[in-house]
């Protein structure tokens, strides 16, 4: 299990390859990469604030729960903070398990919980506005699936 919280960009492909190597006991590796979306074509940058200390603890707990529940062989979470450009990777998760159903479900679970239970806050900056992204009811509701 590896959790990284960082300002630097990352290469999702290289991270995935490194993650997938060295496991001979898994039959499935699933990954998800979240990217800064410019919905209206006017996004200058996205600023992501986090709560150092609590962030690592919260992600660690979420990963531990996923690992136990789906018997994961391994899990990876990378999440950036600071100032990001449109199209830049924000975060990625990867899961490794014996079978794909477990790997997919665990990755989905990790994403739902990282969205609503890891202390990050996104702010969208355009040429004439700076707005904190509001949490969606649907994101909170998604937790009830689990």
């Amino acid at each position, binding site marked *: 299990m590896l959790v990284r919280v960082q300002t630097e960009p990352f290469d999702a492909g290289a991270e995935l390859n490194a993650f997938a190597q060295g496991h001979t006991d898994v039959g499935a590796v699933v990954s998800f990469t*979240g990217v800064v979306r410019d919905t209206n074509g006017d996004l200058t940058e996205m600023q992501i604030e986090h709560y150092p200390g609590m962030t690592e603890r919260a992600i660690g707990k979420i990963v531990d729960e996923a690992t136990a529940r789906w018997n994961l062989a391994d899990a990876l979470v990378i999440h950036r903070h600071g100032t990001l450009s449109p199209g830049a990777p924000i975060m990625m998760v990867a899961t490794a398990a014996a079978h794909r159903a477990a790997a997919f479900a665990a990755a989905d679970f990790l*994403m739902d919980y990282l969205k609503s239970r*890891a*202390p*990050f*806050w996104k702010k969208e900056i355009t040429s004439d506005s700076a707005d904190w992204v*509001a*949490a969606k009811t649907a994101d909170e509701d998604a937790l009830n699936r689990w």
Partner: protein
Amino acid sequence: MNVMYFAWVRERIGIPQETVETEAATVNDLIAELRGREERYEAAFADISALRVALDQELSDFDASLSGVREVAFFPPMTGG
């Protein structure tokens, strides 16, 4: 205790953290104290339903006890991922 603010809560109050000397028994008591201080606190805590609280870096509730707590953080619902 150390009180921290994040995102728009930090912006409204104007500082990321401060040391608060308080006898408040619960989070709600602490909020009532802070609201009585200045308008910027009143503005930040006007709608508690828009806020979340963490005690010593664990999500908690507004009626939770502050006994033994060293760090309180107030912030809006999280938007990670």
